[in-house]
Each structure stands twice: as structure tokens, then as C-alpha cells.
């Protein structure tokens, strides 16, 4: 890692740039991703079509089934498409291509064909964008054998995970939190890879393990600082990859602390936290000092107004309280 600081947005742009430079088979498409269209509505892909040309970087019509399906076909034909589906809520219009095709084709063909496609998609509450532009469904894709799902929390990981996804021979979903695009951190070395399926211990501590990913990491760090004031030593695990889960890192941590809280922005019920909590209980039944706590959003669509949106999201206090419940 260099001393230079960059944003996650820059890191994603760099990762795509470097992957396209390294491998001619890497192509990019999605709505408005090319420079004549501004290089993405958030400029994440700015400059890439200018550098790599109109053939390799293409803005698409509004037709997610069409262009994700084209990504599946192009991948089978030997390309490594990076396909941007602008927002997580829009993944609902192309679930078939992702779930029935990208995820299953290697298996259904007996390994003859494969879909090395990377899907990028963004979401995140907190911006008053309402019910159809801010929620999260990573649990659906984690429940889909054949898919890999990642979500970075910092620029170096965003770079390294995205490059790992692009190099991976299977379909990967790279989830991006809108609130983190501007988050700055150490710039990665060119070519830096964060291996898929490996979690990161962000902070070591012996009292309780906070297990999270994406924006949850900084939220947990803030909560951990407060908890430290009360003498609670928090260990924070940034999953980085949601599926496949890094059992070893999770279980080793909780074996040590005996306590765990899982935190994600998606609604709590039937979320990723449920899988993690069950696994911990299954493996560490007698080592646990308290039941694993789960935090997520309230069980509703995302509300528009600020006060309701705040009530929808988990709060820092809730993280602190959940940690304290395990310590009680």
C-alpha cells in the first residue's frame, strides 16, 4: 500500500482500467458508462471509453435483461465482461439472467462453458431516495450456488476485490455502497488482489466480534471507539466476500471472544446475518458466552423522509447495545 489516498470511486475506476489494460478480453458495459454519456451517472467509469475505445466500453439501452444476457453470452464466447447494473433494485429486472443463467451454466453444461462475468451494482440508504433506490438484496445472491458476492469497505479492498472478481472464472457480484464512493483510504498497488472468500480482521480485540461488511465496517469502527471508552475490546471482521463466507476467520475470532454481533444494512429477517449467526452457533455452541446478535434495517421498504429513513437504518447506539447484550 502506498501513502497516497484515493476514494473508493477512484479505486473502482482504477481496477477496471488496470484490468482492461492487462487483458484484452475485459470489456465493460452498462447504462451511461462511456464518456460521451459522462462515464457513468456517478463518473465511476469516466475516461475508460476514451482510453480503451468504443468497442470495449459501451453505454447500453435501458434493458438490463438484454445487456446482462449479452454479458452472459459474451462471457461464454470467451470475453470477461464487467456489466454495470446501475442500482441493486434494478437487479430485479434481470434476475433470470443472473440466477438461471450466469450462476448455473457452468454446472448445467457439465463444466464445458462458464460465465466469467463481473456484475457491479450500487445501493445504500441515507440519501432520501426512497423505496426503490436504496435497499440491499445480497442475501438472494448468496443463496444462489454458482454466484460469488463481494462488498468492499475501503478503496484498497474495492480495487483488490474487483480485480479478483474480474480475474475469477465465475460470475461475481460486486456491490458498492453509495455512501462509500467518496470514502478515502490508502491507494492500492497496481495489480493488488484481495482473494475472494477471505475476510479481513480490521481491528483485533478480545471481548466481542463485530462481523460486518461494506459500510458496516466504518459504522462498527465508530461504535467500537465508543465501546473502548467503556473498556470493551472489540474485534471487527470485514467479511469482504459475502459468499463464499470465510468460515475460518469468523469462527476463529468468535472462538476467541465468545461473543458476536452481525451487522448489515439489509433488513434483518432472512438476511446474511442469519447465515452467519447459525454457523457460529453450529460450530461454537459450547464456546459462546452469549447468543449471537444480529442487526439490520427495520422490516419495511426504505422510507423517503429523513427521520423515517433514520428509524429504518440501524444506529450506532444499536451496535453498542447489541455488543453490550452479549457482554451482560
Amino acid at each position, binding site marked *: 500500500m502506498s501513502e497516497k489516498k484515493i476514494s473508493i470511486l477512484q479505486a473502482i475506476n482504477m481496477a477496471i482500467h488496470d484490468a482492461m489494460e492487462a487483458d484484452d478480453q475485459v470489456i465493460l458495459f452498462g447504462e451511461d458508462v462511456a464518456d460521451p454519456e459522462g462515464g457513468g451517472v456517478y463518473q465511476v467509469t469516466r475516461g475508460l471509453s476514451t482510453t480503451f475505445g468504443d468497442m470495449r466500453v459501451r453505454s447500453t*439501452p435501458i434493458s438490463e435483461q438484454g445487456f446482462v444476457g449479452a454479458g452472459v453470452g459474451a462471457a461464454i464466447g470467451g470475453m470477461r465482461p464487467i456489466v454495470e447494473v446501475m442500482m441493486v*433494485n434494478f437487479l430485479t429486472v434481470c434476475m433470470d439472467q443472473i440466477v438461471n443463467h450466469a450462476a448455473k451454466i457452468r454446472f448445467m453444461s457439465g463444466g464445458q462453458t462458464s460465465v466469467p462475468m463481473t456484475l457491479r451494482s450500487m445501493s445504500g440508504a441515507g440519501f432520501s431516495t*426512497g*423505496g*426503490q433506490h436504496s435497499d440491499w438484496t445480497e442475501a438472494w445472491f448468496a443463496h444462489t450456488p454458482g454466484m460469488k458476492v463481494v462488498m468492499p469497505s475501503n478503496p484498497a479492498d474495492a480495487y483488490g476485490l474487483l480485480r479478483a472478481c474480474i480475474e475469477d472464472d465465475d460470475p461475481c457480484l460486486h456491490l458498492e455502497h453509495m455512501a462509500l464512493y467518496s470514502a478515502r483510504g490508502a491507494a492500492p498497488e497496481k495489480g493488488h488482489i484481495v482473494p475472494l472468500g477471505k475476510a479481513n480482521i480490521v481491528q483485533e480485540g478480545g471481548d466481542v466480534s463485530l462481523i460486518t461488511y461494506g459500510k458496516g465496517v466504518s459504522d462498527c469502527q465508530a461504535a467500537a471507539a465508543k465501546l473502548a471508552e467503556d473498556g470493551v475490546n472489540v474485534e471487527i471482521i470485514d467479511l469482504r466476500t459475502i459468499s463464499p463466507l470465510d468460515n475460518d476467520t469468523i469462527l476463529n475470532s468468535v472462538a476467541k471472544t465468545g461473543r458476536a454481533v452481525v451487522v448489515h444494512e439489509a433488513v434483518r429477517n432472512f438476511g446474511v446475518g442469519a447465515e452467519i449467526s447459525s454457523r457460529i452457533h453450529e460450530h461454537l455452541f459450547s464456546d459462546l458466552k452469549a447468543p449471537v446478535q444480529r442487526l439490520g434495517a427495520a*422490516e419495511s421498504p426504505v*422510507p423517503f423522509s429523513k427521520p423515517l429513513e433514520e428509524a429504518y437504518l440501524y444506529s450506532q447506539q444499536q451496535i453498542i447495545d447489541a455488543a453490550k447484550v452479549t457482554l451482560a
Partner: protein
Amino acid sequence: MSETLDTNTHLSMYRKMVLVKLNDDRLHTEIRAGRLISPLYSARGQEVIPAAVSVNLQPEDYVVTIYRGIHDSLAKGVPVNDLWAELAGRAAGTCKGKGGPMHITHPKTGVMVTTGIVGSGIPIGAGLALSSAFKKDGRVTISNFGDGASNIGSFHEGLNLASVWNLPVVFVCQNNRYAEHTAYSKGTSIERISDRAAAYGMPGIHVDGNDPIAMHAAAKEAIDRARNGGGPTLIEAMTFRFCGHIIGDDSHYIPEAEMAEAQANDPLPQYRQWLIDNGHASDEELASMEADIGNQIDAAVEYAYSCDYADPIEVKRDVYAHEIA
């Protein structure tokens, strides 16, 4: 423009256009001043379309629209107070502050669904029309969407279904030549979206959506057909979007000449002058109408800011008909 409509209709259309325009201006002001936190997908430039459509509608007719559709909602009759309270996220808003600008809903004035997902209002509009066909309630449904939406699957499925089932619905494609930052021809493989109607055995009308009289005629033809059992119509109303995709968008991807030409043809001042020239109203009468509307909006903004936010407990309500423990 040729004269065929009476003064009442003209003034009614103009009033709606002014309401939409001044409301949009004020939204820009409030958001820029930081007094309102809300995305704004301005329809500045597209005022004629909902004005001309809605003067052909009954109050109980249904409208479905999109994130950009505040113009459609206002023209259909959503009260400005309720609208502003919603945009300000207040409990007194149309949706208690739960929906916001992308989901304005006001069944009392027939505004049934506003969606943020491109194309999805098209089958929903067909479904509302289906309910009218069942109930024989005589209603017509208008489903509004953009040019880019004509490339998504829901457009195809919705139009085909409406045609096969001969539903009383009018599909109004407001072609403002851009879908976010993508120019029409980069996303759409045909010159006129209205020609896609032929793929569904449906009449397609290509009309200048900035010409109130032509737009009125197109809407009337389609609405009458739907109401009389003649089935659906696809209207492609040509227009332009002056303020970018979303507030903050500087339209850098639109060639300057194109923007300049469109702005020179801003339908609002043109129509105003035409009304005066053709004796429908005097400059003073229109100025007074505009002032009235301005005051109405002032009052609505003030009202909205004076309202309370919903209690946080409201997150648990309206998820289901009955709260689940």
C-alpha cells in the same frame, strides 16, 4: 398551431402548464437553498403533455407515472399542499413522507402509482385498465414513461398484453430525446417509437408534444378510443428536458446547439404569446393567473415546512395492512 379549442380549454391547459412550471422552478430554489432534501427529476420543458392529456380526462380516470412525473401528478389535480408536504417528507404529505417524489400517490385525484423503475408502470397501467374493464367503471388509464423506457421488456409485455386484452389504456411516451445521459439513437433502434405500436397491432400517434393543440388532439383521440372500447393507443409526444436528468446534472452530454434550439422553442412563452395574439386572454389576465398560482405555491411551501414529520414508529406501519409483531 391552428385554432380548434375553446378559450376555457386553452386557459385550463395554460393554467396547468404554469402550475407545473412554477412548481418546478420553486423545487429547484428550495433544494438549491438546502431547505428541501429530495432528488428532483425536473420535467421543465415537458409541461404541454400532461396539460393537454389531463384536460381530456375525468377526475376519476387513472394516471400512472414515473420519477419525473410531478408534472403529470399536478396536471391531474394532486393538491400542491399535499404534494409539497410529501416532498418535504412530512406526515401530512400524500404518502406520509414515506414515498417522496418518486412515489407520489393520490388516489383521490386518480394518481395511482408513481414508479422509480423504468418501464414498470406500463404493465401496471394495463392492470388498472383491466380493473376498469372488469368493473365497467368507464375509466381510462394513462401510463406515462420516457423514450428510454421503450427499450425495456416491460414496454413490450405491457403493450402486447393491453392489445391482446383490448384494454382502456393510453400509453404516453414523453420523448425528451435523452435517457439519463444517453442520446435517443444510442439506445433505440428505430426513428419513431410510435412505429413500435405496429408491433402490437395498436394505433401509434407521433405528435409534437410541445404543441398544445396537436397534443390535445392526439390525447383526445386516444382517450376517446379507450373510453369507447377501442382499446389502447401508443402516443409518442416529442418534447425536451431543459434541466438535465436530475438536479445537479449540467446536461454536458447535450450538444449546445441542440439545447439552444430547444430552449428557443420553450413551449410556455410561445403558448402564452399565442393565447394573447388569438384573443384568449390579455397579458394582464395571464399575469394575474400566474401570480395566483405563484401565491398558491408559496402557501404550499410554507404549509409543508410547518407540518410535522411522521413519528418514527411509522416505519412499522403500512408495511402490511396489520402490523406484524
